[in-house]
């Protein structure tokens, strides 16, 4: 499976949401990392034929995906960022319906739905109405529908957003399990998500892919260093004004700061190992993720 994005661009009026992206993907897990508004969802919608690009093309094994039409969508599994469903349908009916939408024969569909319900841990809820499920369960039903056709291309838009820490770990494990032998593209604005699952990370900013590579490559590409230093409380505000501070921990002896900087920020500073979190902060200028940095 090979996907090529060629000069892919989407404009909304004068605003460019996806800006001339040309990249190639093959099997493996790709983590699309970017702050809100970076253009991740727009990019994914184009990959799912939900949105026509203003410019550029997407090829799947060399063929234009819009020309392939249902031949392309047959290969696709998609969990949208805002996953909507039919609230009055039971989990089982919902999945059977989506299976029909995906053109899966009824006998095969029944078997597949049963397997997936087990796999995502919704066996007990199979006959519950979709609207009665908890947030995490809905997301699991969402991944189940994406997997129904055993897709060659699996696209997950912020699959872990809004989940509680336990549910998030379960969900990451589920995605890892499901990601073998296919092309998986998942977007997130939470660094630890991609750190755990992705083989290749794409950092997206203002519609462009700014940096790409494995976590190690991206970390190695950072032109500055990360320092840790224990300082007195009154020093903190001066340092945060001057430097990018990626972490800040209050301790009995003072405050430990984690500072991203090319130069040594203060006397007692010691070099620390760079993490993806630091890279994210360095490039995007804001803290990665809202919840979850500790995991």
């Amino acid at each position, binding site marked *: 499976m090979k996907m090529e994005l060629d000069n892919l661009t989407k404009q*909304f009026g004068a605003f460019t949401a996806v800006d001339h992206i040309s990249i190639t993907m093959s099997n493996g897990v790709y983590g699309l990392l970017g702050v809100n508004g970076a253009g991740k969802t727009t990019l994914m*919608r184009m990959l*799912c*034929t*939900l*949105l*026509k690009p203003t410019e550029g093309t997407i090829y799947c094994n060399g063929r234009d995906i819009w020309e392939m*039409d*249902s031949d392309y*969508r*047959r290969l*696709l599994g*998609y969990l*949208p960022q*805002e*996953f*909507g*469903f*039919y*609230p*009055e*349908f039971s989990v089982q*009916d919902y999945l*059977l*319906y*989506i299976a*029909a*939408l*995906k*053109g899966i024969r009824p006998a095969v569909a029944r078997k597949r739905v049963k397997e997936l319900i087990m796999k995502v841990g919704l066996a007990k809820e199979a006959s519950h109405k979709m609207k009665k499920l908890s947030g995490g369960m809905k997301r699991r039903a969402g991944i189940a*529908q994406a997997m129904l*056709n055993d897709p060659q291309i699996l696209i997950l838009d912020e699959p872990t957003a809004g989940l509680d820490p336990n549910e998030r770990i379960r969900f990451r494990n589920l995605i890892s399990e499901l990601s073998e032998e296919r092309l998986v593209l998942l977007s997130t604005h939470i660094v630890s998500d991609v750190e755990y699952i992705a083989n290749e990370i794409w950092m997206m900013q203002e519609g462009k892919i700014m940096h790409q590579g494995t976590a190690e490559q991206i970390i190695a590409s950072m032109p500055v260093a990360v320092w840790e230093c224990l300082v007195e409380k009154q020093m903190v505000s001066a340092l945060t004004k001057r430097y990018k501070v990626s972490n800040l921990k209050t301790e009995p002896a003072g405050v430990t700061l984690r500072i991203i900087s090319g130069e040594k920020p203060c006397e007692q500073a010691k070099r620390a190992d760079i993490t993806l979190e630091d890279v994210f902060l360095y490039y995007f200028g804001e803290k990665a993720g809202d919840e979850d940095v500790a995991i």
Partner: protein
Amino acid sequence: MLRYEVKKVFSRTGSKIALLILTAAFALTVFLAVGSVEYVDEQGNSSSGIAAARRLWEDKNKWAGEINEDVLLNMLAKNREINASAEYLSSDYMENNKAYARKQGFSDIRDMMNYAFTAFREYDYYRVDSVTDEEVGSFYERRISNLADWLESDEAKDMYSEEEKKFLLARYQALKTPFYYEYADGWKAFTEYAPTIIMLTVLILGFPISGLFASEFQWKADAVFFSAKLGRNKAVRAKIGAGILIVTGIYWMVVFLYSAVVFGILGTDGADCAIQTGLGGWKSFYNITYFESYLLIILGGYLGSLFMLTLVMLVSAKTHSAVISVTVPFALLFIPSFLSGISVLSKVLGLLPDQLLQMGQAVCYFNLYQTGSAVTGAVPIIMTLYPVLFFVMLPVLYQVYRKTQIK
């Protein structure tokens, strides 16, 4: 897939409520339709229902048969006899009712005579009381001469072309006389309330149908729908199929139940009488029987419902809004009735789709359409125009929905 689409539609609370309202509206209208046929007994008390219909049937069918000069003379004599009775002359209305009780057997014939012996655009309930035995033989000729006179009058002179006038007179002359008459109150009641039932059905069906295409967006289920293999082809066809199925199923169920109740209580006698034998149809230039008119009503109603509700689907597929699309039938039904006072528009109004929902009335309108020297009424035009538009809309609807982009 069709089954799931239907299931989706009726999983919405709004659709369930709509069905409940339809049931209630149906019951009320049927009650009114059946109650519209009244019988006045010898004591002057009126009643309705099965027993009343039965007695009216007996009274009216004493006059069943060809309405020739003998029957008309007989009727005039009977009428005079009753007019001379103490009950008729009394100032007490219960006494008057008793007199009416004796007239109701020939009340339909009486109505026709009132029409025949007054000018085309007039109606005088007491005209028959002064019709003489000598002139009664001109009954059928007068139907035609009334029209001819009116067509030459200042009011109508410029309203119709020569061809149109000829067309109308030819239609009048072609009507088979003498009329065959019998009790036909079942058909009359059916005709009178059919538009109410059919319009209510269309308006209320607008609610479930408007959700068929729009709900995917409201539920935000659109992204999964359109990115699925069949989401832009077979699934769209299943939606259209589900829409047609729901409209067809519910429409014919309503019509079947309405017919069953009305005819079950009021009877199906009079099926072969011309619609001109009743007060409503006297002037119609469509020479059809009550049964033919019935077929026209239910078929026209179906074509009209199909057209309007497919338009609802189209608007909801285009706007993604159930709220906007649900107003479509309301607009199609109520705007023409606001404009109906403007006479220059009457030709256009005669071709609007609301006419299909009231075919029993449409056959009585005098809208004519001429191309070259060929003249026709509105009925054949709308009966072909809207099915054609329906079939034109289907591929448009399909293309509009399958090209949906999710923004």
